[in-house]
């Protein structure tokens, strides 16, 4: 019985934990790109597409899409209201203008929310590209002097070996009665096949190296280009935020103007005579 009770509590706890994490994810959608180690291995031309696809499937990408569709609907509502205001008069006109203001306020708020999500996306992307650049730099330039020296020695050994290859072949295998080793026989055959495969890979459209103005780019250049694009978009978002700030200011000024106008109308419609000033009541006194 106690085992059953414990497992029930455990399952309920798990369910509660899952529900909390789902609710948090919905409130604060995120995008977690693939690990840098995996991304740096992708061809530069495919990297952007892969990241875009990964982002589109993430909660953050879905949140931006749903926000965009809400903004589209809001813009449509505002256009309808603006048309209706043109032909409406009196109280209906005032009510429509009030609604228009409310919609404009909601539009600014939605836009600001969407920009916050876009900013989060772009900041994640920029951080990712920075980490990728660090990683590529480490691979390329991070070799210690000892390792660099070893690489040089290995290059020298390989070129020396390549130069002596045919001579060794002739001396060791051709002049001997024993048959050529399986490795020596198969290596050449496999090498020819590998060269054919490498040519096919080079000719494949998906293996195209990234280019800029028709010139092939290195992996570092391509990542730097993507980082530049992300930073440019972030700068544009900052500009859009300033624009939204002005829009919000205009909405509040419009609201003040509408409130003022509504008070004027109320005052004009009032049947109570203006006798607060004694001059206004003079007529009561001068006539009998």
């Amino acid at each position, binding site marked *: 019985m106690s085992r059953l009770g414990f497992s029930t509590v455990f399952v309920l706890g798990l369910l509660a934990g899952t529900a909390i994490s789902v609710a948090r994810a919905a409130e604060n959608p995120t995008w977690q790109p693939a690990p840098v180690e995996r991304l740096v291995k992708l061809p530069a031309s495919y990297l952007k597409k892969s990241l875009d696809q990964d982002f589109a499937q993430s909660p953050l990408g879905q949140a931006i899409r749903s926000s965009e569709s809400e903004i589209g609907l809001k813009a449509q509502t505002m256009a309808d209201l603006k048309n209706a205001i043109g032909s409406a008069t009196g109280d209906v006109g005032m009510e429509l203008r009030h609604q228009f203001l409310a919609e404009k306020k909601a539009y600014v708020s939605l836009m600001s929310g969407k920009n916050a999500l876009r900013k989060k996306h772009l900041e994640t992307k920029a951080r990712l590209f920075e980490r990728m650049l660090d990683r590529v730099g480490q691979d390329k330039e991070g070799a210690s002097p000892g*390792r660099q020296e070893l690489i040089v020695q290995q290059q020298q050994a390989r070129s020396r070996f390549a130069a002596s290859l045919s001579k060794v072949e002739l001396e060791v295998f051709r002049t001997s009665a024993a048959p050529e080793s399986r490795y020596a026989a198969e290596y050449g055959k496999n090498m020819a096949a590998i060269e054919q495969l490498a040519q096919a890979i080079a000719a494949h459209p998906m293996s195209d190296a990234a280019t800029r103005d028709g010139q092939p780019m290195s992996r570092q250049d391509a990542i730097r280009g993507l980082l530049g694009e992300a930073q440019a978009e972030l700068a544009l978002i900052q500009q859009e935020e300033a624009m939204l700030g002005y829009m919000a200011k205009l909405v509040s000024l419009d609201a003040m103007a509408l409130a003022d106008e509504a008070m004027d109308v109320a005052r004009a419609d009032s049947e109570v005579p203006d006798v607060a000033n004694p001059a206004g009541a003079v007529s009561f006194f001068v006539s009998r």
Partner: protein
Amino acid sequence: MRLLTMSLPVALAMLAAAPAMAGALENMERERAVLIQAFLDPELKPSEREARLETAKRRLVDLERMTLRDEGTTGRNTPVVRRAFSNYDLTFLVHAAVEKNLAVADQWMDQLGLTTQSVMSARHGRRW
């Protein structure tokens, strides 16, 4: 206990799937040691020595090639790799010997500084 019975075959399968493998460099070093042993072994008759050297030499050629073509050693900054590539003439014994038109044994002794003159002038005695 049941858990142990279940996990034991899995663990054994994992061990079997990942055997400890020596690289081409380690195999080449071993084969070179066999070759050196063949020309230093005082028990061997000349014909036996020649046959053993020939077999070891042919194996060593392949292993030297495998090592030089092994991209896995590029930049692998370990003492074994560093030492191997610091002296091509001693590590890739057969290739270096053919390059210089020397017998493999001569090439090895040349690299160690063992000349007829130095051997003849050597004295038998305790090393201090």
